[in-house]
């Protein structure tokens, strides 16, 4: 089966000639959450705008379901319908002071019948838990609420691929959990392919199925989160770090000589590992 979205040797340069993306080859499997990790300025946002056709690559390809994207009007419209972007700052995305109207925008642009748009708006509001916000003006919403409305505004287009730029930035810990659960639910119930750019390392082992490390416009590393955490030097060289739990386990292994297997990065995995070690000790 083809990956939902992939890039082959994608290059992009800004107008002033600086290279932003340098032969990026990556793919996001259908119905998975793929993390794009990288420091500020690593090229994550630029990559995303290429995936949605707002930027046109200098060379290389973006493939949707195995088919290269065409950059004519029809091709771009189709690309934007199938690949939705949620921007980092919801104030960049919410242009209307009315929640309902903002969410409906993408649906109307698809040229759907009003009834169908309304159905989708209701569904998107329902999914993102923002139904109760429809009677409030946009400027009266909290940051987290705006973020959810922004997601609803993209869901209304029923994209196959959902791209989120720093979805957890600026949210309180519960807000982070809520947004990430929403994404997991979209993946599991709709089979949506989700890409998230982040440098919030602690969410990666919990929610990402696969991850890429981006640095200086290149893919430096790829693999499951566990694969990436087995290479902490690369993360650190790119202004990132291990998740706190993985770091703890690393310290236990290196400084205290604990014989841990692999690189447990979540509380659950670390707990299993520690219990296993304790049991082994009892036996000895």
């Amino acid at each position, binding site marked *: 089966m083809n990956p939902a979205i992939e890039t082959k040797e994608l290059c992009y340069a800004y107008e002033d000639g600086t290279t932003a993306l340098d032969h990026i080859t990556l793919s996001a499997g259908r119905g998975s959450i793929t993390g794009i990790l990288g420091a500020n300025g690593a090229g994550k946002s630029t990559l995303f705008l290429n995936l949605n056709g707002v930027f046109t690559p200098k060379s290389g390809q973006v493939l949707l379901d195995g088919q290269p994207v065409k950059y004519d009007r029809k091709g771009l419209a189709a690309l934007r319908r199938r690949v939705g972007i949620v921007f980092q700052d919801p*104030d960049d995305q919410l242009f*209307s002071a009315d929640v309902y*109207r903002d969410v409906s*925008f993408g649906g109307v642009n698809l040229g759907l019948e009003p009834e169908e748009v309304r159905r989708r708006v209701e569904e998107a509001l329902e999914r993102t838990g923002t139904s109760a916000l*429809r009677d409030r003006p946009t400027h009266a919403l909290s940051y987290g609420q705006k973020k959810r409305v922004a997601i609803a*505004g993209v869901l209304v287009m029923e994209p196959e691929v959902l791209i989120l730029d720093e979805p957890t930035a600026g949210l309180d810990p519960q807000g982070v959990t809520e947004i990430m659960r929403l994404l997991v639910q979209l993946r599991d119930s709709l089979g949506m392919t989700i890409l998230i750019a982040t440098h919030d390392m602690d969410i990666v082992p919990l929610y990402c199925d696969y991850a890429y490390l981006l640095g200086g416009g290149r893919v430096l590393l790829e693999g499951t989160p566990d694969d990436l955490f087995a290479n902490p030097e690369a993360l650190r060289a790119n202004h990132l770090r291990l998740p706190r739990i993985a770091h703890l386990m690393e310290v236990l292994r290196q400084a205290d000589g604990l014989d841990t297997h692999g690189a447990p990065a979540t509380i659950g995995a670390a707990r299993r590992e520690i219990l296993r070690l304790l049991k082994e000790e009892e036996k000895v």
Partner: protein
Amino acid sequence: MGTDRYAYQSRLRRVSPLPKLALAAVALVVCLCCDSVWVGLVTVLVMGVLITALGGLPVTVYLHFLKVPLAFLVIGGITILIHSYPAGTTVVAALPVGERLWGFTAHDLYQAARLFCKALGAVGCMYFLSLNTPITDLTMALEKLHVPRLLVELMELIYRFIFVLAETAANIRLAQESRLGYQGFRRSVNSLGTLSSMVFLRAWRKGQSIYTALESRGYTGSLTTLAGDYTPGLWLLPLTAGVAGGQLLVFCLERMAVG
């Protein structure tokens, strides 16, 4: 802040904006055309009753909002009221200043009262509209009335980003103030200058990011959206006729009473 907050809470919020606009506009035009003390007073009273009874706004809030333009009305009234007259004119009240009398006659008093009441009535009509209709609904109605799209879309965007930019400006101001940016006149002027240029720059950058975000949602040049469900609110139309009829009746009664 402002009337919009109440508009969102109004019981008439879900009523289509067009009949609300019609009621406010008709009452406003009649009030202005009649140009009479009593019609003005009746208009502001009737609007108050409609806003509180239909919209569910507390009376105190309506009275509070009526106080807002009061200062303007009083100043405007006084400039109409006070004239200078040659000594010996029959005046209601006046102060002799040199050779002349500064004060007002009965006619001046009537003139000022008429202006004051007319303006108050007009304000009542506008409040009926703005306290029951969020701006976004109003722009939707303007679009239905074939006001040029570009204008309507600009209004919507400006309205939305007033709040975003106000927040930006408030944050910058706080940051400046926390570093003593507003101590003394010179420094205040300086800081204010930096603030305005920063807000301008941010607005510029914001504009670009918004364009990108709109584009990624399939923007092709028009901000067409669907409004939430409205009730048609046709029952407001007979009410509109009733209000106008009432205003005209008061006008006729006043004319007959004056003779």
